[in-house]
């Protein structure tokens, strides 16, 4: 290898750079210095309009509306900045500190306008312009607005300026002033909704007046997004939950299309858009920003029983007529595992209808923890359901191996009994539980839930389902048990019989620290299920409260002909 060649190549390369530098700095230096001095090139950003979001009946849920901001150009008001901002505040009745804060936040370069007063009414805009003339600019801007803020906060999310995350977003073509979706549909489908910002590139003189027009890039409008949600159902669900902490999900049993998904308590995303004080949402002990339907996991309680039932049938451990005797509890190693009543001799159908713990303790002992865990996983309780919302959390299914590895403790028979009635370590999100039970409604399919229906006019539904390979006969036996919970004497969900909707389902009271959680998960009409429903109340006391909410919710839907 000749060292001279290597060195010469390097020298050659650096000489090319040196020559170009000589050209730009020595020969054309004067020209560029002049341009630098006159470099009053200003970019006036033109914001793109973000796509709107509609419900399934084309009711608008989120859209961009025009608002008027008052802007100043830092370079132009340099000397009189403080007095001018003070005058502006006095005249417009806007907080002077807020004006200063907006000024400091928006300052990008001294020739670009900075919005100091945001979102004021038209007459005030005209008054201010008359008073302050060329010292201020009227800056009409697109601002996101949510028609049903509390009802849709978790589903839609909101938008933020990209600036704080610009470093990580810029490689993907975002600009700092552009808005980017945060949480919900706004984030998940940002690529559709986001348009492309443009701008005017103008030349200004030292006084800040426009002297030349260098170019424009027109902003591009984002695409409209249509959801599968029915706004009317969503509103009712939100109303019925009221102050309670909890979740209502209503879904198409066959396709996984979501009609309504409400998490309560909720928040007002418009507050985040307008830069108003959002501290009360952030500090709230009930975590209103949290979407409980998909971002939180809870013990399943008795809603886990149908899965254990079908597992025992499929594994050939029992027949539908196998009976166990409930004397109000079962005694294992000096510990009492109780049932909530004394049921006597019961078969699977009765065990499900009456939600007998003893029946399922026995199944748990027969099946063993490993097999139960296998079936819980088969029903998707520890995997993401793939709904088109960000930050979905998956549930957790414990195994003896896990307990030894993670906690350094042995798995006891008591753990097995707890698992058999959905207590102990097992947890899942309300969405996961709904889709698990829905398997019994649609002939054995784990469907993928979705919210996106159309983008502009193109059908964009992402349907997917997994066949679990469970025999139809066994599915039907469990389904009959779930019908029994509503129809049979002493069924745990008899309240729903009054609705005449032919509901099948399972209640659940999940014990936890503090008040128990309440569940109702089901589907209807049971002959040809169309809807799957999940009602969950966090620390709601018991399944009875959840049943009550289900009853009121479906009653309203029926009254208003929404089913």
């Amino acid at each position: 290898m000749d060292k001279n060649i290597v060195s010469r190549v390097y020298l050659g390369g650096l000489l090319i750079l040196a020559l170009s530098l000589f050209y730009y700095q020595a020969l054309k230096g004067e020209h560029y210095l002049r341009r630098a001095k006159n470099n009053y090139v200003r970019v006036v950003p033109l914001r793109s309009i973000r796509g709107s979001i509609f419900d399934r009946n084309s009711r608008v849920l989120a859209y961009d509306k025009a608002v008027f901001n008052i802007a100043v150009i830092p370079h132009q008001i340099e000397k009189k900045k403080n007095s001018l901002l003070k005058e502006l505040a006095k005249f417009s009745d806007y907080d002077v500190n807020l004006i200063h804060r907006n000024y400091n936040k928006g300052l990008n370069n001294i020739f670009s306008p900075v919005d100091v007063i945001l979102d004021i009414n038209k007459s005030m805009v005209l008054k201010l312009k008359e008073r302050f003339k060329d010292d201020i600019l009227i800056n009409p801007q697109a601002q996101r607005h949510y028609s049903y803020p509390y009802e849709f906060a978790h589903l839609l999310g909101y938008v933020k300026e990209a600036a704080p995350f610009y470093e990580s977003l810029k490689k993907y073509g975002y600009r700092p002033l552009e808005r980017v979706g945060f949480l919900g549909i706004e984030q998940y489908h940002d690529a559709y909704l986001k348009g492309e910002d443009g701008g005017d590139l103008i030349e200004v003189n030292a006084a800040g007046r426009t002297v030349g027009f260098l170019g424009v890039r027109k902003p591009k409008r984002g695409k409209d997004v249509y959801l599968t949600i029915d706004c009317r159902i969503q509103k009712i669900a939100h109303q019925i939950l009221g102050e309670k902490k909890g979740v209502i999900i209503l879904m198409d049993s066959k396709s996984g299309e979501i009609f309504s998904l409400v998490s309560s308590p909720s928040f007002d995303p418009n507050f985040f858009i307008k830069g108003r004080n959002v501290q009360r949402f952030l500090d709230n002990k009930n975590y209103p920003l949290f979407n409980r339907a998909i971002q939180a996991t809870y013990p399943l309680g008795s809603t886990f029983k149908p899965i254990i039932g079908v597992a025992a049938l499929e594994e050939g451990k029992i027949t539908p007529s196998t009976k166990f005797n409930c004397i109000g509890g079962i005694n294992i190693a000096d510990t009492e595992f109780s049932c909530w009543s004394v049921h006597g001799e019961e078969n699977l159908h009765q065990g499900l209808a009456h939600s007998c713990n003893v029946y399922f303790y026995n199944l748990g002992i027969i099946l063993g923890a490993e097999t139960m865990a296998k079936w819980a996983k088969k029903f998707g309780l520890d995997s993401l359901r793939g709904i088109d919302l960000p930050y979905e959390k998956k549930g957790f299914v414990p195994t003896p191996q896990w307990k030894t590895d993670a906690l350094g403790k042995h798995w006891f028979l008591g753990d097995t009994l707890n698992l058999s009635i959905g207590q102990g370590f097992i947890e899942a999100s309300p969405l996961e539980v709904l889709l698990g039970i829905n398997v019994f409604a649609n002939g054995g399919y784990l469907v993928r839930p979705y919210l996106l229906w159309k983008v502009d006019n193109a059908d964009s539904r992402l349907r997917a389902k997994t066949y679990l390979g469970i025999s139809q006969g066994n599915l039907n036996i469990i389904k009959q048990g779930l019908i029994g919970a509503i129809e049979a004497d002493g069924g745990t969900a008899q309240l729903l019989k009054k609705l005449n909707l032919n509901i099948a389902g399972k209640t659940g009271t999940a014990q936890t620290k503090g008040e128990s959680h309440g569940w109702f998960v089901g589907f209807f009409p049971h002959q040809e299920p169309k809807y799957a429903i999940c009602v969950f109340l966090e620390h709601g006391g018991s399944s009875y409260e959840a049943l009550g909410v289900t009853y009121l919710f479906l009653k309203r839907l029926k009254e208003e002909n929404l089913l």
Partner: protein
Amino acid sequence: MKLKLTPVKTIIICVIFLNILSLMSLYSSLHQAGEFKEQAIFHKQIIWIVISWACLIIFSFISYRFYFDLSFILYGLNLVLLIFVIVFGKRIMGAQRWLDIGFFSFQPSELSKIAVIFILARFFSHPEKSFLRVVLFPFALVMINVFLIFKQPDLGTASILLFLFFMLGFFSKVRKRYFIFLLIGGFLFSPLAGKFLKSYQRKRLTVFLNPNVDPLGAGYTIIQSKIAIGSGKIFGKGFLSGTQNQFNFLPERHTDFIFTVIAEEWGLAGCLFLLSIYYLLLRKISQGLSKIRDPFAQILSLGISSFFFLHIFINIGMTLGILPIVGLPLIFLSYGGSHLLISFILLGIFFNICRSHK
């Protein structure tokens, strides 16, 4: 075997000079209309420089032969990380090419530069010179990397890897015509590459040919970058006095466009001085090449100097508008930890080669 003049001292002096210039330019670029903004960036860089020097010392004590055995493991690790970034990145808004490790984040594509230098040094120093083993196989390995990094998308690193392959190939003892075959083949397939470019990357390439196409976006950067450099004239505007820079006309000026800050403030004289320092550095790394008997070490040090040269040439070339904007740091000067660390580690490896050949 004795080298006439130990290059280590000269290199250390050069790098200390570059460190100081880097901090000064960073300090200046973080000023806006006289106000020192984002001081945290400045402090972070100081910490990075300290860490990098520590790594240099550590690596100068690790026998370079070790990398011969390590090369495949490192290459495999780098593939895993790159795939991880692609899979992981898609989940979070498609916006991640960084891995967070505690207090700093790290860019796996920087690691792949080292991995590629190692495997190339290993293959090209192989005594057997068959086309398949010595050229085609390493080419395939490099292309897998190029493809994954291209996907991220990081055009700059992808092109550095390709250039490294050809530069090391041409300078090593492998037959030149093999590489000419590959180059011709590459040209025939190049229209395909256009398909993989993201729309904004394609835009950047068109803008390179004509900056006025997109005066607001990529074109704006080239125009403003040229104004900054040109207006520095012969002796510059002086420290902290660059108007282009101070009035925020140039985005990313503390990272990829740090050279514009130097050119505006120190003028042609400063730039030529900087280029001389760079040349001295490159020369010191390449001057002992013919005296190194171990072919692996020879190609390794060649890889190290080529790595520095390519970064310098492409980065300054793009600020001058003679090369497209691909997003590469200026070695030893730009803000950023990953590339600084890698450069120092490479120097440490070179120092070890020098020690072993004393």
